[in-house]
């Protein structure tokens, strides 16, 4: 029989160096990520306002309160709308752009750079610019452009009220499509020309070549980016915060969380909202990790 102490000493000797090296990083993750996540769960069961720590245990009262809060329910419903519009607008545009850009041989670098510039404009600065574009007065940039064309002014973002979300999704697409396009573009560039040649010899026309060769190659990335897109929609925050402010028709989940926890200092209800949103995101993250790891597996098998 082996001596358990020599075993544990061996274990320590083998692993201690590794543990020591990652210890500082683990402390940071604990302090900045894991503890706050757990504390959020704890806070959501207490009655705490104004950032004082002493409160009474109230069970699920905070959860009952937020699910009776019309604005929170509205935000949940809005999130579905954000997903809908972002799948129609935001999801297709990068694929379309990548296919176009992979086909051209002139000014390719210039287009790629230009389309990516919005992605490097800090988020709230980008939305602050769009505030001026969407101004409902005649002096708004879009309205003055329309005026030059002889079209009367439009009450962007407010009339009809449901127009806020698609317009916000448009600005989000404007900001991020170039970066997503790069991922698709990188995949398209790996397609060997012999595939297209083979399809051509078989008599496939351009549309058929695209359907048979181009799209199947992109499919793996389409799947993962679809999940990433939905995750990104759950994180919509500063866009409506700047563009539509208090307008309930575009209120997002993180926006009401921010209003509740920071502006109104309703810490416990904010925590309950945080737990609900985090649950959604955990589920989506695991789907994402699952999908990407099976992809990795497929690549390895080849």
């Amino acid at each position: 029989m082996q001596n358990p102490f020599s075993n544990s000493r061996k274990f320590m000797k083998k692993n201690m160096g590794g543990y020591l090296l990652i210890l500082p990083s683990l402390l940071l993750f604990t302090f900045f990520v894991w503890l706050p996540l757990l504390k959020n769960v704890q806070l959501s069961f207490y009655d705490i306002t104004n950032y004082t720590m002493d409160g009474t245990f109230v069970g699920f009262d905070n959860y009952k309160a937020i699910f009776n809060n019309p604005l929170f329910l509205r935000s949940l419903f809005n999130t579905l709308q954000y997903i809908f519009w972002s799948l129609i607008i935001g999801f297709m545009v990068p694929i379309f752009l990548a296919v176009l850009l992979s086909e051209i041989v002139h000014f390719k670098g210039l287009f790629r750079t230009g389309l990516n510039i919005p992605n490097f404009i800090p988020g709230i600065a980008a939305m602050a610019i769009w505030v001026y574009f969407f101004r409902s007065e005649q002096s708004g940039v879009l309205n003055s452009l329309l005026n030059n064309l002889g079209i009367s002014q439009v009450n962007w973002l407010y009339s009809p009220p449901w127009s806020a979300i698609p317009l916000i999704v448009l600005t989000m697409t404007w900001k991020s499509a170039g970066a997503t396009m790069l991922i698709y573009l990188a995949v398209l560039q790996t397609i060997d020309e012999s595939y297209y040649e083979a399809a051509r010899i078989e008599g496939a026309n351009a549309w058929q070549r695209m359907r048979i060769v181009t799209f199947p190659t992109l499919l793996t990335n389409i799947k993962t980016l679809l999940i990433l897109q939905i995750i990104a929609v759950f994180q919509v925050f500063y866009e409506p915060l700047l563009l539509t402010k208090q307008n309930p028709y575009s209120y997002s989940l993180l926006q009401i969380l921010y209003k509740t926890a920071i502006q109104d200092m309703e810490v416990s209800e904010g925590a309950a909202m945080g737990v609900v949103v985090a649950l959604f995101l955990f589920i989506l993250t695991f789907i994402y990790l699952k999908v990407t790891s099976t992809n990795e597996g497929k690549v390895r098998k080849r």
Partner: protein
Amino acid sequence: MKKLKRKRGGIFNFSDYKSLKARILYLLVIILLVIIFIISIFPPLWLLLSSFKETDQVLTKNFSLFPKSIELIRIVEVWNQFDFGRYYLNSFLLVAGAVISSILFNGLLAYGVAVIKPKGSHVIDLLVMSTLMIPAIINISPLYMNIVNLFNSLGDIFNTNVWNIPYFTYLPLWLIYGANAYYYILFRIYFAKIPKTIFDAAKIDGANNWQIFRYILVPLSIPIISVVGIFTIIAAWSDFLLPSLMTQINQSEQPIMVKLYNMFVNQTAQVTFQERLMTIMFSIIPPIILFVIFQKRIAENVATTGLKE
């Protein structure tokens, strides 16, 4: 035209472009891309040109892109009047610390999990990865409460008010970038591809874990280090939520993004139209310059990892 005649791969190749119809289609695609290009750069271009304009020239019902006259002195005036130098300095300080902490701590963790692999590292990997998509704002109040409690205990121990120490509040703003699942995974993917024999050879030569990290892994990983560096610069420069909470007391330590945030969201200060536009402009110039310099490396990273910022 010559380029089209040489085009081999893709849905359309040189043989297709013999037909006039295909060439017209190509021209239409180029025109479409020019339009999309203009849409992409138009808002920042409008901002840049409008900040030279008088207020009544910007808020007008007849649109004109170019200012009637360009007075560079206006920029200097506004810069000095609102002390932008100070906010820039704060932003640079925030970014510098964030980059160091981001590369060091996420890099070390990825090195531990991908290369040294001590027992239980796959559990750590799972715990880190599960927070990949959790934005900081979800935990913002418990995080802020933890920081306040820690600062108060530190104050009790050292018998001083740490909030008054210049830039002490930047410590959490820097260190939070050392706990980022996204940068961690970028490092981990890259480190895992390095042949294991290199590390084994160094171990046989008597190098310890830190020496292997410092003298072998880091020099081999310059491409991914610069990518994480660039992403951290952009993220730290754009960050406003925790920085605004941490600089509530000492407002002269606010980075430029917090100033922008206060201007557009909290609306705490009365500011002129001109100052608003200039603040946006000053806040977007450094990241755009950075992007133009490093765009090739960013595109390469996207191509290899399939992940974007």
